[in-house]
């Protein structure tokens, strides 16, 4: 059998993209409410504590705990492959890129590639998810959240997804959802990087370095930076020999496949060259968790 690194970069990229798209589609169809359920766990805990009520091991808490444990072990793989909202964003962004490349109407108005935000602004925006998480936590704690949950774009999304069109109290959420989807369309993973409160909670976890990525810097082509440019999370991989976890990384593996020299390696050296297998194993574990918890 040919190893992954024997394929050309283009073949590898395409193969990886297909595998990821298939996993995302399957998760969107079978486990579309996983991300809201985990977040409902956070909201449940804070609401109960704020009201002085008992907290119990409810299904919400179980899903939250399971996903946190999974993230500690494998990093934010859930975000990159299984979150229905992220997948929807990826699909919209893919469509946007396709239209940019193929449609005359859009191309006339803008460039062939999407605009990039300046690095300094990206860094500042990266703090916003934590602010949103803190705000929602406080709102739940003070018991206000239940009354204003119509503002939640996730709730509007979940309702549309379930075919529930009684959106009367959710107009604000629906408008926000529209804005978010437009943002996701223009910039890959815009919501996940700059807004998502669940992602903020995940990236506060101590992630074990099993899936963290590094690079053999001395083998790099000078001035290449293909990995940094391909990264939807805007991460720059650490210099050689360092074992620094990138807490924003959601394991999309784009950098691994785009590297012309195959310089990027994983926390477990044996995975190198078998990244697809590792992806499938993680998917299987995650699907097992979902089925077990009956999401």
């Amino acid at each position, binding site marked *: 059998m040919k190893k992954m690194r024997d394929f050309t970069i283009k073949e590898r990229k395409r193969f990886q993209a297909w595998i990821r798209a298939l996993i995302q589609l399957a998760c969107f169809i079978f486990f579309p409410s996983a991300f809201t*359920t985990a977040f409902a766990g956070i909201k449940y805990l804070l609401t109960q504590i704020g009201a002085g009520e008992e907290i119990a091991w409810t299904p919400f808490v179980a899903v939250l705990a399971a996903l946190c444990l999974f993230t500690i072990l494998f990093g934010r793989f859930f975000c990159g492959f299984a979150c229905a909202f992220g997948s929807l964003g990826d699909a919209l962004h893919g469509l946007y890129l396709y239209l940019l490349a193929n449609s005359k109407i859009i191309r006339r108005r803008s460039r062939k590639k999407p605009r990039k935000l300046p690095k300094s602004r990206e860094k500042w925006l990266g703090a916003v998810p934590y602010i949103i998480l803190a705000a929602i936590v406080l709102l739940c704690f003070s018991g206000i959240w239940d009354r204003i949950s119509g503002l939640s774009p996730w709730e509007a999304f979940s309702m549309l997804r379930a075919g529930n069109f009684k959106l009367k109290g959710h107009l604000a959420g629906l408008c926000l959802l529209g804005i978010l989807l437009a943002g996701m369309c223009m910039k890959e993973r815009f919501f996940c990087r700059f807004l998502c409160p669940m992602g903020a909670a995940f990236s506060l976890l101590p992630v074990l370095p099993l899936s963290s990525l590094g690079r053999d810097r001395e083998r790099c082509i000078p001035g290449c930076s293909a990995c940094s440019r391909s990264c939807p999370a805007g991460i720059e991989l650490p210099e050689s020999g360092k074992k620094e976890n990138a807490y924003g990384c959601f394991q999309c593996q784009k950098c691994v496949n785009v590297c012309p020299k195959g310089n990027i390696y994983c926390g477990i050296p044996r995975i190198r060259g078998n990244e697809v297998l590792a992806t499938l194993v993680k998917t299987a574990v995650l699907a097992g968790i979902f089925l077990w918890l009956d999401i």
Partner: protein
Amino acid sequence: MRSFWIRTVNLAAIVGILFTYHMVLSIYNSKDQVARLQAELERVEPKLQNDGRRSAPAEYQDGVYSGEAEGFGGPISLEVTITDGRIADIQILSAEGEDGAYFSMAENMIPTVLERQSPEVDTISGATFSSNGIRNAMKQALGKAGEK
């Protein structure tokens, strides 16, 4: 590596706080419940001796009644069993459109309904749609059972 340990300590602290909160509150609540049950017992006991029968009067006609109502993503249908004029059992027949975890949360209403013998219980926060579906379906079924 330093940030990893800081995060570990943070997480341990959060889990610790949640666990302590849970323990303290469940001890506090169980004491509270013992007191409440004792008061209830004292209130009910003389009554029992007086007329020799259970306190709650029969409210519904015996039988099995079905009810259906809109949940989150489709209809929820259930069956209410009435024995001796009391709500004895509530069985969910189907809830195809509901999300697993949300629906299990909403199902927590059922024990409360059995305890209070009334469908008028608070909805489960975070699973409002499923809770409303279950509540409305119960009301429909109990409507058929008719209050005596």
